[in-house]
């Protein structure tokens, strides 16, 4: 057996809250072997970041390690002194943090920050350090290192900064790299490239890595070995293939079954893990997962199972893992019940035609001086149609204009041009000219549940006010209350929530209240902008199921916006893909996502991390990042990054709209049939990715 790079034995960590010390992490065991990328997965509050930070002996002020050992290089990091640990940090253990913009000093050039590390730890001179920094940047596929080194952090894009951080972390040839959600803030296509890069670099440098994430998809794509944390305890750890193929802990099984992709394309209901994770300090002597486990027995509720060796290097903390492994019991059944009530009808609930919006023109000073500020064209002549009782999905990376489109339809932003019809009635683009009937029929669920509810108003006041303002007939106070309680039950809460304030609700509960509020006046169309992106996986599944149930029950339509293709493809009947303010492809969901035709859609799909280690592949690497809408490329906006670019025609001519079956439309110079033929022939050569990108194009963000 190989000697692990770092091993954690029986680690327990406590946080001081008020005057008490509450246990956050309990007897965690973890070992990372050389060359291994070890994934640490868990939902928020599971203690994954705490464990990762404790492993490099870097904890918050109000935290302490109450028990256990952290063995690195034959010494216990808990016992080495401050100066010794500083020799280890940055030299033998390095960190790629989550929020990279915060981690670089904004007032120092990149060169200074990169050479500082190597000069400090390797004891080399300025010139040598500079050369090394250049090499390191070239290693992370930055085409013009000299340029990047001379810049300040804010002059680089998010993806570029992340590359710099990775280069910096690897520059001292550390033995362990800790990656704390390094791609959470990035777009999918950038994330795919970074993950691909990380996997290769870590192997090449012969380092080991700890990858902390909540995203099972990226873990499956990157890691060799996975440890699943729940409520501060290890539930299961196993080699990645085995964990995804045959989870032995009910929690792991539940997490996997929650994912929209778990239904294998059928529109079956997602599995829900009922209940919520125990809060800090509420942890008892029972199995921490017993309250939410469908297989829990009296034993589980009475005593905590030990972390047992389940063979093949696997560890499981469950009383019943043997039965699960033998296939005698299954924790979370994926129901195959497909439910499709009344199918989408042909009549339109919403049609938006020629929507355009330009930002940054209406500044007072500019108007007075008559100067035209350059502005950003956020929407360019976008048209969408939503059928009754159907879901329309909008996909795209940040800056694609999907949120602007939704807000223009809601009139939270006033579009410059365009025509809106709701159930065939023309609707004003200005909110103040909309009548009550329009407001009633067009409702929304916001992205962030924390700010969509007024913290000073109770759940009952919030929903009741909406009913009062928008419902068709005047109702008495008690009738409104009865309706609110009915709505609360419909979204899976109880009537007790009526008097609660948002501060006492969890993220998922807040989102349910927001959904109840959206549905209160029986709307015809609900626009949900990233309704699950700030929620944990298990909560996401609950909300998605709820949205689906409500559509069936209330006969409403949705526009669902998400960067997560899994969520959109699971919910939507029709999908539109946006890029730089225009729709590059739209059509029936299956047509768009199963047989992608536009090269951008193809790249998006290839970049989406699938939670299946067997489906690992090098994603189609798009060059650079989404260009700023400020200097939008001419011709086809995608030509700067398109892996299937034909030639100058893409740069000069606006591509025509090609139509296929069932209203499938793409904007590309290739005819549909020809595109399909090339795509069937295989992915584009993903050789030079960022390497040949002129740095200016990425740097100006």
């Amino acid at each position, binding site marked *: 057996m190989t000697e692990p790079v770092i091993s954690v034995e029986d680690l327990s960590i406590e946080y001081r809250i008020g005057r008490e010390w509450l246990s956050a992490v309990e007897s965690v065991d973890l070992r990372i072997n050389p060359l291994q990328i070890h994934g640490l997965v868990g939902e928020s509050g599971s*203690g994954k970041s705490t464990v990762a930070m404790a492993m490099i002996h870097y904890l918050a002020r109000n935290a302490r390690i109450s028990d256990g050992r952290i063995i690195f290089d034959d010494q216990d990091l808990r016992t080495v002194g401050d100066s010794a640990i500083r020799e280890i940090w940055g030299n033998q253990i390095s960190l790629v943090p989550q929020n990279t913009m915060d981690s670089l000093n904004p007032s120092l050039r990149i060169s200074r920050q990169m050479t500082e590390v190597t000069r400090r730890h390797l004891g080399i001179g300025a010139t040598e350090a500079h050369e090394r920094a250049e090499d390191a940047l070239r290693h992370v596929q930055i085409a013009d290192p000299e340029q990047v080194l001379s810049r300040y952090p804010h002059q680089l894009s998010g993806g570029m900064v992340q590359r710099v951080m990775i280069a910096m972390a690897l520059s001292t040839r550390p033995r362990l790299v800790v990656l704390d959600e390094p791609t959470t803030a990035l777009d999918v296509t950038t994330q795919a490239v970074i993950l691909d890069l990380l996997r290769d670099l870590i192997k090449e440098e012969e380092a080991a890595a700890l990858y902390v994430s909540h995203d099972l998809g990226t873990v499956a794509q990157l890691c060799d070995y996975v440890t699943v944390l729940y409520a501060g305890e290890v539930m299961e750890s196993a080699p990645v293939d085995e964990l995804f193929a045959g989870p032995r802990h009910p929690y792991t099984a539940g997490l996997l079954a929650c994912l929209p992709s778990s239904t294998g394309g059928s529109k079956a209901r997602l599995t829900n893990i009922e209940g919520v994770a125990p809060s800090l300090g509420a942890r008892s002597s029972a199995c921490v997962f017993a309250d939410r486990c469908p297989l829990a027995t009296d034993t589980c509720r009475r005593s905590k199972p030990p972390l047992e060796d389940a063979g093949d290097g696997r560890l499981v903390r469950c009383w019943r893992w043997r039965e699960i492994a033998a296939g005698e019991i299954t924790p979370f059944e994926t129901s195959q019940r497909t439910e499709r009530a009344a199918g989408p009808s042909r009549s339109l609930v919403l049609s938006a035609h020629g929507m355009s919006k330009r930002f940054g023109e209406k500044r*007072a000073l500019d108007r007075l001086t008559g100067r035209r500020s350059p502005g950003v064209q956020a929407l360019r002549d976008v048209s969408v149609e939503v059928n009754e009782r159907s879901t329309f999905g909008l996909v795209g990376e940040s800056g694609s204009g999907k949120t602007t489109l939704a807000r223009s339809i809601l009139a939270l932003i006033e579009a410059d041009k365009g025509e809106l019809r709701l159930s065939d009635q023309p609707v004003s683009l200005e909110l103040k000219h909309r009548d009550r009937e329009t407001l009633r029929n067009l409702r929304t669920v916001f992205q962030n549940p924390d*700010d969509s509810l007024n913290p*000073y108003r109770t759940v009952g006041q919030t929903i009741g006010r909406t009913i009062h303002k*928008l419902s068709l007939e005047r109702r008495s106070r008690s009738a409104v209350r009865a309706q609110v309680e009915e709505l609360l039950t419909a979204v899976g809460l109880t009537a007790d929530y009526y008097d609660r304030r948002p501060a006492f609700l969890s993220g998922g509960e807040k989102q349910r209240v*927001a959904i109840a509020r959206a549905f209160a006046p029986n709307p015809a169309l609900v626009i949900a902008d990233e309704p699950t992106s700030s929620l944990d996986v298990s909560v996401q599944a609950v909300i998605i199921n709820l949205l689906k149930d409500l559509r069936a029950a209330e006969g409403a339509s949705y526009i669902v916006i998400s960067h997560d293709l899994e969520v959109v493809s699971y919910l939507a009947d029709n999908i539109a893909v946006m890029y730089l303010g225009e729709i590059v492809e739209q059509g029936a969901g299956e047509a768009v996502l199963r047989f992608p035709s536009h090269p951008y859609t193809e790249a998006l799909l290839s970049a989406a991390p699938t939670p299946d280690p067997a489906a690992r592949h090098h994603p189609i690497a798009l060059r650079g990042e989404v260009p700023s809408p400020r200097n939008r490329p001419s011709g086809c906006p995608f030509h700067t990054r398109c892996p299937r670019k034909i030639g100058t025609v893409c740069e000069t001519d606006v591509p025509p709209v090609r139509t296929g079956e069932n209203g499938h439309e793409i904007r590309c110079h290739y005819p549909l049939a020809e595109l399909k033929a090339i795509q069937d022939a295989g992915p584009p050569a993903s050789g030079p990715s960022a390497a040949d990108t002129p740095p200016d194009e990425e740097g100006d963000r």
Partner: protein
Amino acid sequence: MAEKDYAEPAAHAAPAPGSAPKRRSRLRTAITANPLAFIGAAGVVIFVLLTLFGPLLAPYSYDQIIRGTDIGGETRRALTSRPPSADFLFGTDQRGRDIFSRMLWGARETIGLPLVATIISVIIGSSLGLFIGYVGGLVDDIISRILDSLISIPAMVLALVMISTIVPLLSASGSRLIAVLGPSNISLTTVIVLIYVPIISRIARSATLSVRDRGYIEEAKLRGEGTMHILFRQILPSVLPALVVEASLRLSYAIILVTSLGFLGLGVQPPSPEWGRMVLDARTQISEAPWELWYPVLGIAVLIISFNLMSDGIRRLLRNEE
């Protein structure tokens, strides 16, 4: 990240349903955690009660010149500059008036006037700040610039100019209402309001900006709420903590302003016994009758310290709540 993960469950745990004894012990821990704030608050309560009921407690009227016969003596001469004694708790001044009574009467001008002026400023300033913060655009630009220019004028200079111009004008008007309220009271209040409205509206404005684009405000617009509802029902509650802290701080500054103007002879006009004015009058007596100076000065100091301690406590309390 790590702290963030755990902040929430703690917040959930703290306001857990507490039975009555538990709540009492929480009050006790709150007091022991911040004893100064409670001393300040107690002081403020006492001062406010004195403002309301002081004249009832006062043994003499504020302008009554006490003669020997008043306390059972024989002489008709005014008892001037008597040191503190059982008869005159704080002594008498050089004209023979009871300082204790004068201070009780004077609390109205010293505390009441700034309090009223601050309340008026908060009402006007917060409404204005909420409005311009929410509406934004050109309206906000113009009004904000005007408010900025008002802030840039030094408070004392503005006060001097206002008082020297307004008071004669008001006195000449001959209106009964003005006569009852007193021209100098009106002008002092106007000065305080003019100085404070820009400051308070700036705070209300910036607090409004931070919540203006929240989802719940947009939701309110989408259900057709009017501007008034959005301003006062949706935004005001979240702006209120900042306003309360500011108002409590502003109040002690207003007291300082009023007493300072009084000391300069520009504030509330005699015979009203405003404490700053009393200090001015006692200044010449400093060697013969120092108590004439002590009590008003001590009164002002204790008053302002109490208000500051309380406002500090409020700020800490609200921060903890967040």
